[in-house]
């Protein structure tokens, strides 16, 4: 067992939120066609509120802190927040589109000891990338920033969301990442908007097209293992946890709402009204999420893929049932192995082709 696995296991045993993802703003200088956010400012946490929150997170034991948005650097106090987070000894990862990063910003991120900068790149071709972001010149600026960050020795990860518009460019972005000395990740899942709007799902590639990506060793490593048929599910697997959301990790919106995960918009409390640690320990919603074991999942517990599926409880929640299947993950399990999932069978027998998504509303008192 690696030290990291030991750390995660210890955090789980102690009930410590080892990781937190804090979006400091939903404002953004890009308007990506697949984005799940409303970019208006509905009353962001102030600098003082964020600093207080960071103290609370450190006291609660959070070690890995992801700062993101929206575009994190849209906040004038972004570097003040990053510096403060580093003074509290968080391991800080930044998610950004990087268009506002110049030499000075790259140097400062390096000086602050930021561990990793994740940058969204949709294509190596400006006409494709800029069409996704709707910001002319964005690819040029983003890639210039990536090179500046790499020149500083910072670890950079190019995050490439797979969509219909850029599906032909993944290999080129991967090659670009290699040339620059950046890591590369391909995310095949476009998620619904946080307000429940599913229109962005039209950007998802078809399941039939996913297959080629799941059989590409440069993306998945050992294809035979990745696409192997699921192994029989035993009691240990059924007693397992669906994922770390709400167990050792959480997400906080720019308005102070606490969710189990950025992809799991179940409001568990708000740090403007309660201390973070009280939400973390006593929120009925978080405790409900924590109580769920694989054996409790209505459809998935009987699925042959139960032990190997990447089922996202947040996506399942947005489909209407946090204990139900996530159709996107059913699709992935099927494409990987060619074996139909229990969720697919259930949908077929109920005649439901497309899952309905619940409407996610922000906390009423926090809307402008």
């Amino acid at each position, binding site marked *: 067992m690696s030290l990291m696995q030991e750390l995660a296991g210890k*955090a789980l045993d102690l009930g410590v939120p080892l990781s937190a993802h804090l979006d400091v703003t939903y404002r953004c200088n890009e308007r990506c066609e697949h984005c799940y956010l409303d970019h208006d400012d509905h009353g962001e946490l102030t600098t003082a509120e964020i600093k207080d929150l960071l103290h609370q997170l450190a006291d609660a034991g*959070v*070690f890995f802190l992801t700062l993101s948005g929206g575009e994190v650097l849209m906040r004038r106090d972004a570097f003040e927040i990053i510096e403060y987070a580093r003074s509290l*000894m968080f391991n800080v990862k930044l998610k950004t589109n990087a268009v506002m990063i110049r030499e000075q910003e790259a140097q400062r991120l390096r000086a602050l000891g930021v*561990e990793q900068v994740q940058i969204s790149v949709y294509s190596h071709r400006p006409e494709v990338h800029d069409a996704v972001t709707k910001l002319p010149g964005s690819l040029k600026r983003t890639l210039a920033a990536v090179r500046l960050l790499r020149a500083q020795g910072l670890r950079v990860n190019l995050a490439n969301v797979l969509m219909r518009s850029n599906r032909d460019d993944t290999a080129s972005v991967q090659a670009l990442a290699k040339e620059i000395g950046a890591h590369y990740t391909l995310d095949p899942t476009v998620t619904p908007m946080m307000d429940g709007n599913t229109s962005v799902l039209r950007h998802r590639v078809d399941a039939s097209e996913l297959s080629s990506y799941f059989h590409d060793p440069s993306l998945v490593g050992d294809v035979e293992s990745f696409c192997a048929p699921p192994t029989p599910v035993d009691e240990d697997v059924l007693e397992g946890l669906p994922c770390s959301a709400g167990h050792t990790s959480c997400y906080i919106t720019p308005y102070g709402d606490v969710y189990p995960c950025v992809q799991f918009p179940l409001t568990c409390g708000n740090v403007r009204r309660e201390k973070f640690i009280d939400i973390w320990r006593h929120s009925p919603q978080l405790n409900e999420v924590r109580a769920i074991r694989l054996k409790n999942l209505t459809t998935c517990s009987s699925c042959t893929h139960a032990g190997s599926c990447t089922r996202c409880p947040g996506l399942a929640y947005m489909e209407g049932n946090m204990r139900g299947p996530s159709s996107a993950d059913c699709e992935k399990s099927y494409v990987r192995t060619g074996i139909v999932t229990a969720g697919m069978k259930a949908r077929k027998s109920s005649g439901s082709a497309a899952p309905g998504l619940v409407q996610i509303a922000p906390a009423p008192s926090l809307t402008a």
Partner: protein
Amino acid sequence: MSDKYIARSKAVAARVLGGEMMIMSAVDSRLFSLSDVATVIWEAADGRTPLSEIVTKRVCAHFDVSADVAYRDAEQLVEDLASRGILSISAQPIPEGVAEHPAAEAP
């Protein structure tokens, strides 16, 4: 005997989990777990306090060990931590923000 000054690297993250100090280097994402004694020394590594004073006041005061043995062990420990990029060592006091960034490496 010339004394040493030690300072925590600014390129690390640290958190105590269940009484154990965990440290991660931002340079190469390596994770370390420090022993109790190492934690005391690491926490006292402010760049201004001589290692001998840290050993006398922080280590010997809390652990049953002679000053000579503790200092020798501490020297070895700080050399080890420095080789991993999570601590700086100098013969002079280390001003805040100086020499605390080990060289970066490619992914």
